[in-house]
Every structure is written in C-alpha cells, then in structure tokens.
C-alpha cells in the first residue's frame, strides 16, 4: 500500500477495463514521473469528455451536439438503417466506407445473465424512428455471438409486423487470411453461407455447343445486359454494389 493520493490513483486506474493491479501501479508511477502539463491535459480531456459528450437523440451514437454528425449529414442515405450494439461498431463500419446509410445504436445486446433485456436497449426509440415511411431496409449488424444473434432474432420478431426489409450481415472467412488458419466454426459457417460463383460451362470454353440461354438472374459481373436497366431502383442498385448484404437465411424460421 502506498500513501493516500498514489494509492487512490492506483485503485481508480485498476477499475478501468483490462487494467489489473500491476498495470495500474505502472501507469500511476508513469503519471507521477510525467510532465505536469501533459497530465493536466489528460485530466482535462477526461473531464471534457464527461461534460460535453452525450448521445445522439436520434441514433444514440456518441455526439457533442443533440444529434450526431452522421444523423446531421444530408448526403447520407436515409432509407437504410444499420443497427449496431455499440458506438464503436459505428466507427468500425464507417472505416470500411462501404455503407452510406444511417445507424441506430442499441447500447448493448440482450443478455439475461447480465440483466439486459429489450427494455434496457434503445429498441423503443428504433420503432419510433421506423414510423418514417422513407426507411426501406434495416441491416442487423449485432455481434456474431450468441447474445448478438439473440438480439437479431428478437428484432426480426419485433419488427416483422412493420413490413420493412430486414437483412443480417453475413458471416464467413476473413479477407486476406489463409483458409487453413480459419477456425472451424467460421469455416463451417462460410460453407453454409456459400454463394453461386458460376454455372455450367461458358460458351467460350465449348464453342461447338449452342449458346446457352442468357441467365438473367446471374448477370456476368461488370457487363450488365443491354435491356436490363437499373433505373427502376437506382437506390437498390447502388447499394448492391457498395454494400453486399445477402438475404437473411439464418433466421427464416424466426418469422415462421
């Protein structure tokens, strides 16, 4: 035990996530040794965060104003809402730059062991938001663990009567990795969620055969057929290119 202030600092640091007693002690002594000005700035920024940062009134993302930067941005696609557990998930998806819609932060997942039910999440506020007819698609981006899945299933059940298209992010192999290093569960999921990559032999391979009927349901990538204009659903076509979300298969039984 150290005297007064030092021990108090160690105790406070030790309450932070991922910091054990040894780390707390090391950080405390680093603070003691450090430049007073730097540490004042640290203290001030902690204070400022607690004073200024609040949650967006619309989507519950962190914000310094009543509404967050994403909800204020007029260029964002208002017809799609991506539902995530935490603000940090918004950041993760934003980094991909693959999604141009808006978000809704639930503030966690359904976790009975931790005493978190739907009432503790921002689901009522989501339902209120959905009264707006311009919203046509909800993307469930809760974590791919049991609690995240349960939350997704719950949302499907609770929101199905509204008649809005609901999709769930696919799970599969990490990009840039080796197949052999993928863990079995991920690999098995990737197998279950496999997609059609090609059909019977292409005409170039077997020129003597009569040309096959054009398959309109799987147009060749990058060569859209002449008659097949995408102008009827410009929004859909655009989002298909930018953010490929397969239709939700896993929870078909949820709305049986």
């Amino acid at each position, binding site marked *: 035990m150290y005297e007064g202030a030092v021990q108090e600092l160690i105790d406070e640091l030790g309450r932070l996530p991922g910091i054990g007693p040894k780390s707390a002690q090391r950080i405390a002594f680093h603070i003691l040794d450090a430049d007073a000005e730097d540490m004042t700035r640290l203290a001030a920024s902690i204070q400022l965060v607690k004073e200024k940062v609040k949650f967006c009134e619309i989507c519950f993302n962190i914000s310094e104003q009543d509404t967050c930067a994403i909800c204020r941005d007029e260029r964002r696609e208002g017809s799609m809402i991506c539902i995530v557990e935490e603000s940090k998930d918004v950041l993760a998806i934003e980094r991909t730059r693959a999604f141009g819609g808006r978000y809704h932060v639930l503030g966690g997942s359904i*976790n009975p062991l931790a005493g978190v*039910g739907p009432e503790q999440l921002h689901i009522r506020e989501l339902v209120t938001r959905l009264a707006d007819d311009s919203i046509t698609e909800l993307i469930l981006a809760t974590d791919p663990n049991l*609690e995240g899945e*349960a939350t997704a299933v719950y949302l499907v059940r*609770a929101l199905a009567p509204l008649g809005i298209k609901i999709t769930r992010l696919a799970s599969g192999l990490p990009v840039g990795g080796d197949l052999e290093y993928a863990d*079995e569960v991920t690999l098995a999921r990737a197998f279950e969620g496999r997609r059609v990559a090609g059909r019977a032999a292409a005409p170039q391979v077997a020129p003597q055969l009569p040309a096959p009927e054009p398959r309109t349901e799987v147009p060749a990538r990058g060569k859209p057929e002449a008659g097949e204009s995408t102008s009827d659903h410009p929004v859909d076509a655009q989002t298909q290119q930018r953010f490929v979300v397969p239709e939700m298969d896993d929870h078909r039984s*949820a709305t049986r």
Partner: protein
Amino acid sequence: MYISQLSLTSFRSYAQADVHLVPGINVLVGPNGVGKTNIVESIGYLANLASHRVSNDAPLLNFGAERALIRGTLHRGNQQTQLEVEITSGKINRARINRANPVRAREILGMVRTVLFAPEDLALIKGDPSNRRRFLDELLVTLRPVEAGTKNDYERIVKQRNALLKSIRGKSKPTTSQENTLQAWDLQLAACGARLIRGRLNVLSLLRPYMQAAYADLADGAKEASAVYRSSLEGEVDDASLPARDLETLGQEEIQELLLTAIEANRSRELDRGISLFGPHRDDLVLTLGAAPAKGYASHGETWSFALSLRLAAYRVFGDDDPRPGSGPILILDDVFAELDATRRNRLAHIVAGAEQVLVTAAVVEDVPEALKGHFFQVSPGQVVDA
C-alpha cells in the same frame, strides 16, 4: 498414433517430470498414491481438455502453483507435432502447437485421440445421466472438433435462457416483450440443441454394433446389451396429435422443430420452474441388458463388461473414422486389471494389445496380463524412471 516425450510441469503431484514413452505397450508400476494415474490423466487432458477424475481444473495444479504445463510429442503417421497445454487457475487455458504462438486450448481438440479405461467408468453404467452425456460428447468432439463450439454455445444458451426464465418467474403472465425475448432464446436453444442431439445420435449409431459385439465377446453372450438415446422430448411431443417418432431417424431440422414445439407447448411449466426443461442437457443414454436396465439391475461383473464394451466400441469407431496406419487412438488402461476377473482380464488384454500405443497403470506387476508385458516404468513419488 503415439506420444513419445511427455513432460509435466506443476501438474498434480509432479513439480517436473519427463517420461519417454514408447510406441506399443507402456506399463507404469508403483504403489498407490505415487502418481501413476496423474501421468495418464495428463494424456487424457491433451485429448479432451478435461480430466476423467475431476470436473474442474483446480486439482490438476500442483498444490500452490498458478499454472501447469503438459507437453507432449505426438506422432501420427509420419507426422510429428509438439503439443503444449497451459492450465491456469481461473483463466482460459492456452495451447501451443509446434511452439507457435499460443492459441485457444480448443484448437488442439481432435489431435490426440485416446480411449481411457478406468475404475471411474463404472459410473457410465451406474452413475447419473451426465456421465453418459459426457461420454457421447467427448467422443463427438474428438471425431468432429467443430462440435466443441456447438457444445460451448449450447451450455451458454441454457445459462442465458435459465437466467431469463428466472427473471420472469413468479409474474402471472410474461409481457409481449418478455415473450419475444424468450422466443429469441427458444430458437437459439432449438437450433443449437438439435445440432448437438443429432451429433450424439450419429455417434451412437456408430458405437452400437461394436458395443453389442464387444459385450457379447466379454460376457459370453448371456444377455444382449443395447443402448437407446432417451430425449427429454419423449412423452412431450409424441402425443395424439403427433405420431410417435424415433428420434434416431430424424434429421437435425426435424429435431429442431420438435424441440421448439415442446418448448412452446410447455411455456408455463418452464416459467414455474425457472429452468429449461427440454434439450440435450436433459437427455440420457439408456443402457439395457436383456430386458432390464443396466443401471440398478446389472451385477458388478456385468457392469464392468458393459463399461468396457462402451470403451472398446469407441476404440473401433476411431479406427473406422481414420483407418490409416499410425492414426489409431492411444489406449489407456488405468488400474483396471486389478478389478477384473481372469477371463475378462485376458480378453481385454488380447483386444488392446494390438493398439498403436497402450498405457497401463498397475500397483504391482502381477496384475498386468502376460499379453501386456511391454516397456516398464517404475513410478515413485514425484518421478518416473525406466525399469
């Protein structure tokens, strides 16, 4: 397959022990309480990440130690793999494969295959259903390591769902929101539970013919041994509206439907009790001899024969699953010969003598049948030496 170098650090009674095991038969001899079983238990741990003697890891650590290490060199065909498992009290265990960076211990499941015969096996017949569920689950996970995830997920789903049921318990009627939340967990339980049940049934169908043959061989065919999976669904969904169906003929999706039906039909009962009443965590494997259940009716000798038959069947199932030479499981016979009569002892010895690696523990050399006189190790407190 066989393990050549086994090294234990702070494991059970050993501060440090290095044993150079050989392919073929290894016999560990020493008086009671010197740590013979600890050696074979460590190999079982490499295979199942669980001990056959205790259900939690704390007793595996040398008294006062914070972590224990089990290292072994596994030979499978021409392949040689360094395995290392670190058991830490109160933390998640880690494993290292070929001295690479530590990964989750689960990654090594399925690499080492063992079949262990031990006095504790009597509980397979006489004990409560959890013993038999564990037998099927361990076999399933070793054969199909991906199912370790199914099992973990299932256990967590049941915990979550029970917490939810308890929180609603006592209220006259669940609210719509509570009902929806429950249904979300119902679906998870049914999907994951059906997968686990289907996996167990697959294992059982592989085991059954070998088990019956082994029992007939060990007990001179006086009675017929049989094993039937008894589901918690039995009697719940096979009522007048649903024709009686044999679970074993059903696919995973059909079982999932049955589970959901049972759960939804018994909502108020589950809410009264505050626990999940349906699913693989409430199932059993019913073993019968002739017309009578083995539990309670079998004699001591019959109980032994039945337990040995189950283990021998597991050995055969591994053999079918991977018939390549050098891939057969390691057989461990922990202190079983002293318990068996001469006939069973010799028959068992004869069957296991052909395995790629056999580990036998015995208090005295005289307990070891002639057919299993292989490489001897003398075990004394805290050390193992070639004899």
